[in-house]
């Protein structure tokens, strides 16, 4: 009886489990077709035993599947937030890569370091699954929400992940693999100043909105605080009087503070549509604060799915 196993499986001894696949015999030749593709760089062992449960497996030969000759090509393009100072109750970082990445290889490979260069264990949520976008280019890393939220035991016992007045450095390990299995060309890091926490709802009424006029063609919005840039892209939109998306070009500055929309055609009934799921850097949305202080009336949530600003 023949079997093929990865070399590490030999440690199973008598309880060896054969790799799934099918055997074809022709004369003196036995051909094995594995159920799943062999992994480049892996050593496989052909083992045999007489068909007797008591007999041990005997090694008959070793086969090394060649390395795939992977060339590192992916790089880190950005680390977000884009702004240099983040609130002490920052909820998430995100890392955008230049190409699609392998899901599952990022665990433990994004780390935070304090101003002395000391690692800050337990500050990022270290649980699968990894939070990738559909294209697997943008990875979201949540700061431990239980440590951010006031009143919860992780916050009480271990404190908030970030300390106001300090710095925090996000470090991306080059061993994170792209979709081909190759590591990154290089690691990356970005250091932020930690500012005051933000504990209020995102309120579009506080935004500075300049509507298109004879002086300017575009709709310009200055937010009252830096927002989550991805959610701005999804949840802030110029619409026409029917609520349909107005054709035009939109931009957002790197700090996610200044939003600008230049319509393709002049619209008299241009409006600004905001989905109340829009969040700032600390996870406060238009709908609710991230952790609500029940004694503060200003913290009360609102129960509406959208807000439309008009001229």
């Amino acid at each position: 009886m023949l079997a093929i196993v990865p070399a590490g499986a030999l440690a199973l001894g008598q309880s060896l489990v054969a790799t799934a696949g099918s055997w074809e015999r022709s004369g003196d030749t036995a051909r094995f077709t594995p159920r799943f593709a062999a992994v480049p760089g892996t050593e496989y062992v052909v083992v045999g035993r007489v068909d007797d449960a008591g007999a041990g497996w005997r090694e008959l030969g070793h086969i090394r599947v060649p390395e795939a000759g992977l060339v590192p090509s992916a790089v880190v393009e950005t680390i977000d937030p884009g702004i240099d100072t983040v609130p002490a109750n920052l909820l998430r970082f995100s890392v955008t890569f230049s190409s699609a990445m392998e899901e599952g290889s990022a665990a433990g490979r994004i780390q935070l370091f304090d101003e002395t260069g000391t690692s800050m264990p337990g500050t990022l949520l270290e649980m699968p699954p990894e939070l990738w976008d559909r294209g697997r280019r943008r990875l979201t890393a949540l700061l431990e929400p239980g440590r951010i939220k006031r009143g919860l035991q992780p916050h009480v016992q271990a404190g908030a992940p970030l300390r106001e007045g300090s710095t925090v450095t996000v470090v991306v390990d080059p061993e994170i693999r792209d979709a081909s299995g190759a590591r990154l060309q290089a690691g990356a890091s970005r250091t932020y100043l930690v500012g005051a926490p933000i504990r209020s709802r995102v309120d579009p009424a506080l935004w500075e909105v300049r509507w298109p006029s004879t002086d300017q063609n575009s709709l310009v919005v200055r937010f009252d605080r830096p927002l989550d840039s991805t959610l701005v892209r999804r949840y802030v939109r110029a619409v026409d009087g029917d609520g349909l998306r107005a054709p035009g070009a939109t931009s957002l500055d790197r700090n996610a503070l200044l939003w600008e929309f230049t319509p393709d055609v002049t619209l008299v009934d241009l409006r600004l549509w905001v989905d109340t799921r829009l969040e700032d850097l600390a996870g406060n949305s238009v709908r609710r604060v991230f952790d609500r202080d029940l004694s503060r009336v200003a913290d009360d949530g609102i129960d509406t799915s959208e807000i439309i600003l008009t001229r």
Partner: protein
Amino acid sequence: MPATATSTLLSAGPVLFAPDVTSDGSAVFFAADVARSTVFAFELPAEERAVDGAEVNVDRLGAKVAALLGVEGEDAVIRGMTVHPTSHAVYLSIARGRGAEAGAVIVRVGTDGELSVVELDELPATSFELDDAPDADDERMDHWLDGTEPTSQSREINGVTLTVAQVPVQRSTITGLAWVDGTLFVAGLSNEEFSSRLRRIAYPFDGSATETSVEIFHVDHGKYETQSPIRALTAFDGGSSILATYTCTPVVQFSLDQLRGDGLVRGRTVAELGPMNQPFSIVSYDRDGEEFLLVSNTRHPLLKIPAASIASQDALTLALSDPDSSKGVPRESLDHPGVTWMANLDRGSIVVVQVDGGDVHLRTLRADVL
């Protein structure tokens, strides 16, 4: 939307058997494909009924699964586990390989300890996708002019060359599946918003899902209220209640009746599990005629909570610093270290994945040791 699935799983995630089999013995196996934000439902042919008292125990499960799949140990990772309602075979969802070879495999472990690959592609399947597909006109209408954005590309639109950045496509990641009151519950986490929508999806899939926003009332001060995505949940108390664990560690009870209405639901926080720890898996079981819940954790021991105590537990309201504070329902730490995934073999025994001595093992824990 539901569809007859072309069903090779792209990625491994939580799995679950519907508890009831059809008259011909076939069972419905749900598998979450995390990369596609999709739940697949496969119809599995009948399996032989387990003999009474059958257990599933496999030493060195990790090494054996890796050998079966032709990879070294670190390239086979368990992402979900469920038990066949009739045969009591354990079905494991495995992330196999890396790079271009990375994929998802379902491995079956029989009560005889034999491992085999489940050939899903040959089975009838339907699917339900959680996220709406991006609008077809998104690219045309939503052109972003960020010269600073890494995803920017030059593109000609209406005769004008613009630097266009595409908005990354959102993805809901599935963290837990549960069967409650004849309905599939899907817990998930968005890669974008920190939202707590819990989806109830009727099976057979008809395209409809009810989303519930589950708001929780937190411990300590009675001063803060907050929201967090649910990670895992289980029904208890005859299916009338749900115990859920959240991404920010509390364990929260809410009733099924609450979920039937519209609007926000405020669950009761019944326990907190402390820092540097995440609840991993949650199951209910019976011992000596009494119901208990088990919560496995990333760092803390296996916790046992009497179901009866949850009903009588007031929502936690006092600060920890307060001498009258409570950490919630009475709970007992059990001496079964390293337990991660858990699933019921039946009401009186739980099959667990246990980390021990550098490998993981499949072990059956009967109620008398729980």
